[in-house]
């Protein structure tokens, strides 16, 4: 049973560029959440997707956007990259909010470095 998978593992971009990160949820999960973890910090919630719609959003600018596909996989897009966007981006999957008290399962993350 595959867990949450993320790609790529590492990515290097320059300021002003755009990036797309990808996530496949754990089998049986239909909800995907994205988190940003800066060095030495705890993860911060970016947003959550369920039924192909953004359901919840943390305190992140509109440069951060996402998408969920019919197979429940998800993408995180970041436009106009800033140096401060350098971080580990974590994807977490779970079952539909409110239907069961199931915790989120995390992938190993994508390490994004901005030069």
């Amino acid at each position, binding site marked *: 049973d595959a867990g949450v998978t993320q790609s790529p593992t590492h990515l290097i971009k320059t300021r002003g560029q755009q990036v797309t990160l990808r996530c496949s949820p754990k089998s049986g999960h239909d909800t995907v959440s994205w988190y940003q973890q800066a060095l030495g910090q705890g993860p911060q919630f970016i947003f959550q997707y369920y039924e192909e719609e953004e359901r919840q959003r943390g305190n992140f600018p509109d440069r951060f956007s996402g998408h969920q596909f019919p197979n429940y996989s998800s993408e995180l897009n970041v436009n106009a990259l800033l140096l401060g966007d350098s971080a580990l981006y974590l994807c977490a999957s779970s079952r539909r909010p409110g239907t069961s008290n*199931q915790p989120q399962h995390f992938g190993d993350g994508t390490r994004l470095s901005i030069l």
Partner: protein
Amino acid sequence: AQSVTQPDIHITVSEGASLELRCNYSYGATPYLFWYVQSPGQGLQLLLKYFSGDTLVQGIKGFEAEFKRSQSSFNLRKPSVHWSDAAEYFCAVGDPYSGGGADGLTFGKGTHLIIQP
């Protein structure tokens, strides 16, 4: 707004000794509570969770945590640590009135655990 405080940035424990990692939360009611562990270069692994009921919860790898409503705390404990327990530990809270455990979580800044031989 909910928040999580992990007062200890680093903790050093000798192998075989007991461990307690502190977590305090700020929330209007009783939130859902979680402890996750992160090894270098890895994602987060769930150690244990509290939703309701018995305030002492058992997790994986011999960890347990106790929810104390009066202290707004959810401290993680282990009676005897192993060298493989060296990692970063995160406490997190979730809103039980929206998505529950599947909701966007609020994390503390983490405690780095160092194990001395």
